[in-house]
């Protein structure tokens, strides 16, 4: 356990653990809503926050949180109320955020492109004690929301119109998902980097659902995969000179491929079982309801 010796490594592993938990926990709802790329968009917007943090000489993590939350709320409002082309409005927001970040960081006296790279692709060795505090607080919020409100968030993500008719506060819950996703992006920013955040939200969910049949199992499986890949990716970078974000994401994709290969025989077995059930002669004995009157006078 010599990798636990250096303090920077302890901080890195704590950050990686929290990212591994939170990113898939939010991602599962985004995938359910078919907004798998939302995290990517928020990541771009958060760039402006990082740049602003450097320019104002305040914490880039908190600044990024602020700007990402504002951006995600804007995205959700565009999605909900936008009557024009939503994808174009979102594209404006994405690239505006990215360009703003690059510009601001170059304007600031302390910022440099090297700094920018650490936010874009993640850099575990530079995770500061303050970063760990910020990440822990934010991660606690994400876990509280995604686990505590799971049934409501499931209902809203599953069928928005039905959720409104059951009287759930759909607008507030949608905004909450958007804000939680934004917070998660900034949690994960230091570890996997803004450009790869979305992968850690989506890939573990995609991998888990190769095997699972319920939402509950998908949620748990995705979080488990997220934790395993982010911890093992972080450890890898201790021994090998490699960027943590890219390593973690490639591990996640490796797990996805592995589980997909495993799932093929499993799916075949389930299909055979279903077939055997359908071959049951009792299932073919269907009584046709006598709804129509026999006296037909249809004009054809």
């Amino acid at each position, binding site marked *: 356990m010599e990798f636990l010796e250096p303090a920077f490594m302890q901080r890195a592993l704590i950050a990686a653990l929290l990212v591994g938990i939170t990113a898939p926990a939010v991602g*599962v709802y985004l*995938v*359910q*809503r*078919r907004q*798998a790329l939302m995290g990517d968009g928020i990541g771009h917007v958060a760039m402006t926050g990082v740049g602003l943090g450097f320019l104002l000489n305040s914490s880039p993590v908190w600044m990024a949180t602020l700007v990402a939350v504002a951006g995600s709320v804007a995205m959700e409002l565009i999605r909900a109320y936008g009557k024009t082309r939503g994808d174009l409005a979102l594209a404006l927001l994405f690239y505006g955020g990215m360009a703003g970040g690059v510009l601001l960081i170059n304007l600031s006296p302390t910022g440099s492109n090297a700094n920018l790279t650490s936010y874009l692709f993640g850099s575990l060795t530079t995770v500061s004690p303050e970063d760990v505090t910020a990440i822990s607080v934010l991660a606690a919020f994400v876990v509280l929301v995604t686990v505590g409100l799971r*049934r*409501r968030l*499931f*209902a809203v*993500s*599953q*069928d928005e*119109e*039905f*959720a*409104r*008719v*059951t*009287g*759930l506060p759909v607008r507030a819950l949608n905004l909450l998902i958007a804000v939680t996703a934004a917070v998660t992006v900034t949690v994960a920013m230091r570890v996997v980097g803004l450009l790869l955040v979305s992968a850690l939200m989506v890939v573990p*969910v995609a991998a888990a*659902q190769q095997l*699972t*049949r*319920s*939402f*509950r*199992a*998908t949620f748990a499986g995705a979080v488990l995969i997220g934790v395993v890949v982010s911890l093992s990716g972080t450890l890898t970078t201790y021994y090998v000179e490699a960027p943590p974000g890219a390593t973690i994401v490639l591990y996640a994709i490796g797990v996805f491929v592995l589980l997909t290969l495993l799932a093929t025989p499993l799916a075949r077995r*389930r299909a055979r079982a*279903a077939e055997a059930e359908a071959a049951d002669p009792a299932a073919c004995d*269907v*009584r*046709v*309801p*006598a*709804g*129509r*009157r026999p006296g*037909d*006078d*249809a*004009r*054809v």
Partner: protein
Amino acid sequence: MDREPAATPVISVRGAAAALGARPVLRGVDLTVHRGEVVALLGANGSGKSTAVRSVIGQVPLTGGTIELFGTEQKRFRDWARVGYVPQRTTAASGVPATVREVVTSGRLSRRRFGRLAKADRAAVERAIALVGLADRAGGPVDALSGGQHQRVLIARALASEPELLIMDEPMAGVDLASQEVLASTLREQVAGGATVLLVLHELGPLEPLIDRAVVLRDGCVVHDGPPPEAVGQHALPGHDHVHPHAAGEPLRTGLLS
């Protein structure tokens, strides 16, 4: 909360007008549904029947007229657990796998706005699943179900809150015969238990014996409100016109391809 007098209509729509974009879809629709009634909303595609039910549940804003639910103005109505809604869907699945039980549990949230589900809530969910004959599939994934079974899941979800009023938008669309039978008997039990039902139908079909009254819409106006029109079409063969006697002159096209 005060119980409204028994004579208060469950649904009362007066002069409802609604538009989708610039096109008027409802043009002064009156619709009253009394307690215990089963009312079918019929009409061709584009006649406004779906818009009419969606305006009743507040999903389409009115440009004129009023809607009352259980005697309360719809905008102020909050007691949504009393309403079970079955939207027009072909699937109960979403981007992530979910079991039948998980989907149906969503329907119970109107009874339990905050906090955890109690034992009684779980029991209600199991009852709703059993009512539509999917008890043996409750723990199975919805994406393994047939089209008719998806519809049964959506109906179970509406029944999970034990509603007094069921609003269904084309519950028979794309449903196989076995599921049609199950749906008809489920509905029969609900009606026997005192439920009020408003359902949008393309044609009366196997639900015909249950229906007390039919309201026929055409171009956003009510053209018939009374006993269900005699079913005279042969079957729902593709391209086959059902000619309803109330629509003298131009036949009301309700065939699958019309």
